[in-house]
C-alpha cells in the first residue's frame, strides 16, 4: 500500500493564481483531512471530510475549497493565491474503529506564493 500520496511535492505560485493540491489514499479510510503548517507553528486544520460527498470547514478554511467525490481522493483548491498561503500542506486519512482512530499523513506539499 502506498498509504497517503500528495502531489506536487513543491510548487511556486504567483499572487492571484489558483491551483489544486492532490491527495489520494488507498487504505479505504472514510475520514480525510487537510492541514497547513507555517514555520514554527503546529498543524492547523483547513478542511476535513467524513466520507464521500461530505466535507466541512476546519480552523482556517478561508481561501480554500475542497470536494470529496470518491473515498480515495480529497483535492484541496487554492482559489486565488496570496503570500499568506505560503506553507507546507499535509493531507491525512484516518480509520475509526470503536472510537479509536489514528491519522496517517502524506509527505506534504511545500507551497510558496510570490
Amino acid at each position, binding site marked *: 500500500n502506498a498509504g497517503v500520496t500528495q502531489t506536487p511535492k513543491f510548487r511556486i505560485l504567483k499572487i492571484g493564481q489558483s491551483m489544486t493540491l492532490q491527495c489520494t489514499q488507498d487504505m479505504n479510510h472514510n*475520514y480525510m*483531512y487537510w*492541514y497547513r503548517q507555517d514555520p*514554527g*507553528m*503546529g*498543524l*492547523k*486544520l483547513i478542511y*476535513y471530510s*467524513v466520507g464521500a460527498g461530505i466535507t466541512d470547514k*476546519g*480552523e482556517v478554511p478561508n481561501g480554500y475549497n475542497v470536494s470529496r467525490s470518491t473515498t480515495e481522493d480529497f483535492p484541496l483548491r487554492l482559489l486565488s493565491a496570496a503570500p499568506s498561503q505560503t506553507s507546507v500542506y*499535509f493531507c491525512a486519512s*484516518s480509520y*475509526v474503529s470503536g472510537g*479509536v*482512530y*489514528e*491519522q*496517517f*499523513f*502524506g*509527505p*506534504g506539499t511545500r507551497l510558496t506564493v510570490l
Partner: protein
Amino acid sequence: AQRVTQPEKLLSVFKGAPVELKCNYSYSGSPELFWYVQYSRQRLQLLLRHISRESIKGFTADLNKGETSFHLKKPFAQEEDSAMYYCALGRYYKLSFGAGTTVTVRA
C-alpha cells in the same frame, strides 16, 4: 476552544539521559490526547495515544487531568529519538496540534 501548548521549541539531551517533553492542554470535555513524531525525511506518524496506556520505543505519557498535562517521557534517550514531536488533542476525530518540540540527542 481547545488548545495545546508545548512550551519548549528545542530540547537537547545527551544519549542515555532522561528526556521529558511537556504538553499542556485546555479543553472542557474528556480529552483524547496523542503524541505524533516526525523523524528526519519521514512522514508525521503516531507515537502513542493516552487511551492505550502503552509504551512505544521506550516512551510513555501520562494524562494528568488535574494539571491538564500529557507529558512525554523516556528514561534513557537514544540518538534515534532525535526528531520533531507534536502533542495533539482529539475531538470528534479531528486533531488540534501543539507547535512541536525539536529533540536532539547528542552522543
